[in-house]
C-alpha cells in the first residue's frame, strides 16, 4: 500500500510542461485519505463493528433472493423483455443510443463468449470479425445496393470464412500462442482496411451505407406493402433487439447442446478430449467460426446503424473491451456477459463527468475483480437437468 503512494506522487506530477510535483499534493492527499478511510472501514468491519448494519441488510438481501428465486424464470424473462420493448417509448434519444451501443456489445460479447468462455481459446483479435462484417455490409450496400437483411447472413458468412482461414492455420496452437496469432490477425485486417484505398477508401471510411429497410403493411389505400427505411433510432433499436434475442437463443441452444459440451470438454482438457474421440481440431474451428459469425452480424448492424465505417472503429482496444466484458461478467455465462456489456458501456455513459479517470477506474475494477471474484460477476451455473424419472 505504501509503495503505491510513493509511486503515485511523482507520477501525478508528470505534466506535459515537465515535472510539477508540488501542486499534485492536493490530489495525492485526497486519494491517500480515501484509501486510508476505506482501510479503516474494512478493518472495523472485519472486527465486527458494523454488525448492527450488515446483519439486517444481509438478512434483507437473503430474503430478497429467496423471493426472486421462487418466481419462475419465465416471469423474469418476460419482465425483461417487456421492459426492453417499451424502452424506446420511455426514454429519449440519448438513452436509446446508449442502449443500441450496449446491445451491439452484448452481441459481440456473446459471440466471443463462445470462443473464450466455452471453447477456452483466448482470442485477442475478435474485433477483426466485427470489422469484416461491417465492411462486408458497407461494400455490398454501397456498390450493389443489397438490402440489409440479405447482407446480414452474408456478413456473418464472410466473418465465419475469415475465421476458418485464420483458424485452420492456428487451431493447433494453444493458449498464449493462439492469443498472439489472433492479435496479429486483427492487426492485419485493420491494416488492410486502412490501406486498400481502392476498395475500402482507406482511413476515410465508407459513407452512404443504407439503413435497414422493411416492408410495412400500409392500410391507407387497401392492403399494400410499403418499403420503409428504418432510419428512426427507435426502429433501429428494435432491429438490434431482435438480433440480441436471436443471439441469446442461438448461444443458449449451442451452450446446452452436445457441441457446447464438447467445447467445454476441450477447454477442460484438450488431450483427454482427443483420446475420448472428440475431434478437437474441427470442434475448435467450429467454435471459432461460430463466434466470428455473431461478430460479423453485429458488425453488419453497426455499419447499418452508423451508416459509416472506418478502420478506426476496429482497433485492439475494442477487442480488449469485448474480452473484458466476457471476463468481468463471467466466462461461459450468458447473463454474465450481458451484465458485463451493460456495465462497461452504460456505466461510463452515466459517469461521463469523470471521463478523465475512466481508464484508471477500469483498470482498478479489473484488478479488484481478479482478486475477489475471479470467476466473474455472474459465473455460469452447472445446469441441473430435471430428473428423468
Amino acid at each position, binding site marked *: 500500500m505504501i509503495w503505491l503512494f510513493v509511486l503515485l506522487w511523482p507520477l501525478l506530477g508528470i505534466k506535459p510542461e515537465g515535472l510539477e510535483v508540488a501542486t499534485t499534493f492536493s490530489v495525492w492527499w485526497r486519494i491517500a485519505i480515501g484509501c486510508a478511510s476505506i482501510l479503516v472501514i474494512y478493518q472495523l468491519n472485519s472486527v465486527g463493528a458494523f454488525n448492527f448494519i450488515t446483519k439486517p441488510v444481509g438478512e434483507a438481501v437473503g430474503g430478497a433472493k429467496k423471493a426472486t428465486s421462487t418466481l419462475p424464470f419465465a416471469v423474469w424473462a418476460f419482465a425483461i423483455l417487456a421492459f426492453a420493448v417499451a424502452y424506446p417509448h420511455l426514454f429519449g434519444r440519448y438513452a436509446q443510443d446508449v442502449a443500441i451501443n450496449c446491445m451491439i456489445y452484448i452481441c459481440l460479447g456473446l459471440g466471443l463468449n463462445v470462443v473464450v468462455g466455452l471453447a477456452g481459446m483466448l482470442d485477442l483479435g475478435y474485433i477483426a470479425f466485427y470489422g469484416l462484417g461491417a465492411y462486408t455490409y458497407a461494400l455490398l450496400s454501397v456498390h450493389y445496393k443489397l438490402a440489409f437483411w440479405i447482407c446480414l447472413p452474408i456478413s456473418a458468412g464472410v466473418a465465419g470464412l475469415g475465421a476458418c482461414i485464420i483458424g485452420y492455420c492456428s487451431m493447433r496452437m494453444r493458449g498464449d500462442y493462439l492469443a498472439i496469432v489472433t492479435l496479429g490477425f486483427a492487426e492485419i485486417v485493420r491494416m488492410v482496411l486502412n490501406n486498400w484505398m481502392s476498395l475500402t477508401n482507406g482511413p476515410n471510411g465508407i459513407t452512404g451505407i443504407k439503413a435497414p429497410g422493411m416492408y410495412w403493411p400500409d392500410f391507407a389505400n387497401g392492403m399494400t406493402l410499403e418499403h420503409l427505411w428504418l432510419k428512426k433510432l427507435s426502429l433501429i433499436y428494435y432491429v438490434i433487439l431482435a438480433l440480441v434475442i436471436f443471439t441469446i437463443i442461438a448461444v443458449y441452444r449451442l451452450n446446452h447442446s452436445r457441441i457446447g459440451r464438447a467445447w467445454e470438454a476441450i477447454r477442460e482438457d484438450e*488431450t483427454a478430449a482427443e*483420446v475420448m474421440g472428440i475431434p478437437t481440431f474441427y470442434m475448435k474451428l467450429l467454435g471459432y467460426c461460430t463466434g466470428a459469425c455473431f461478430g460479423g452480424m453485429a458488425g453488419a448492424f453497426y455499419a447499418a446503424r452508423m451508416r459509416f465505417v472506418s478502420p478506426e472503429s476496429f482497433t485492439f482496444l475494442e477487442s480488449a473491451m469485448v474480452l473484458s466484458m466476457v471476463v468481468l461478467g463471467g466466462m461461459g455465462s450468458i447473463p454474465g456477459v450481458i451484465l458485463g456489456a451493460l456495465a462497461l458501456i452504460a456505466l461510463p455513459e452515466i459517469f461521463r463527468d469523470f471521463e478523465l479517470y475512466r481508464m484508471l477506474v477500469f483498470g482498478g475494477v479489473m484488478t479488484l475483480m481478479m482478486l475477489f471474484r475471479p470467476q466473474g460477476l455472474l459465473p455460469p451455473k452447472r445446469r441441473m437437468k430435471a430428473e428423468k424419472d
Partner: protein
Amino acid sequence: MSEPILELRDVHAGYGSIKALKGISIKVMEGEIVSIIGANGAGKSTTLMTICNIVKATAGDIYYKGGCINKVASDSLPSMGLCQVPEGRRIFPRLTIEENLDMGAFFRNDNEIADDMERVFAMFPILRERRRQAGGTLSGGEQQMLAIGRALMSRPKVLLLDEPSLGLAPLIVKQIFDIISEINKLGTTIILVEQNAKVALSMAHRGYVLETGNVVMEDEAKKLLDNPDIQKAYLGE
C-alpha cells in the same frame, strides 16, 4: 496362433531430440490383459501415447486389427474401438458426471448411449449417486472410476489404461482392478501400464518389462512374477 488385435513393430518415438522409445515390439491378442511395467522414464506412458498417435512414431508401425494406424488421427481411434484412459485420470472437472460420460460417447450417434450409461452406473454405483455433480468434486478413486467409465462409453475393443492405481489407497486400487478384470471378462482386451508391478502382473495374462525405451523381457505374467530379477527390480523383494 491367431492374429494379434494390436501389434507394435519396432516402434521408435520421442520428444524432440529425446528418444523415449527405441524400438518397441509388443503383441496383444484379443481378450488378453497385457501389463507393461517398468521404472519411471522407461517409456510406458509414451508407448500408450504413441499407440493413440498423441506422440508420433518416428519409425516402426502400429497395427490394429491388421491395419496400420500410424497415420490415423487420435480422435478417430475411439470410434475404431481403441480407447485410452490417460494417466492422472484427466476427467473434465467442470462438467457433471453425466456430461463426462456423454463425452466418452461423443462420436456415437445411436440411441443406446443411455443404456451404456446405465451399464456404467451399474458398474460404479457411486457415480449414479453423484451423476449431477461436477467431476472435479469427486475423490481420486471416484475420478478414476469416472475416467474408466467414460472410456467404456465408447464401447472399446481395446482399452488402454495408464496407471489406474496412481495415488489411490490400496483398498480402492483393489476395487479398481477387480472392475478391470470384470471388463476384460466381458470381452474387452486390456493393456495395462503400471508402476504397481505386483498388482498388475497378478491380474494380467502376459507382461512386458520396459527399460529406457526397450523391451527387456516379455513372458507370461505368472512367470514374470516368479522371476527373481523382476522381483528384485520391481517387486521389492
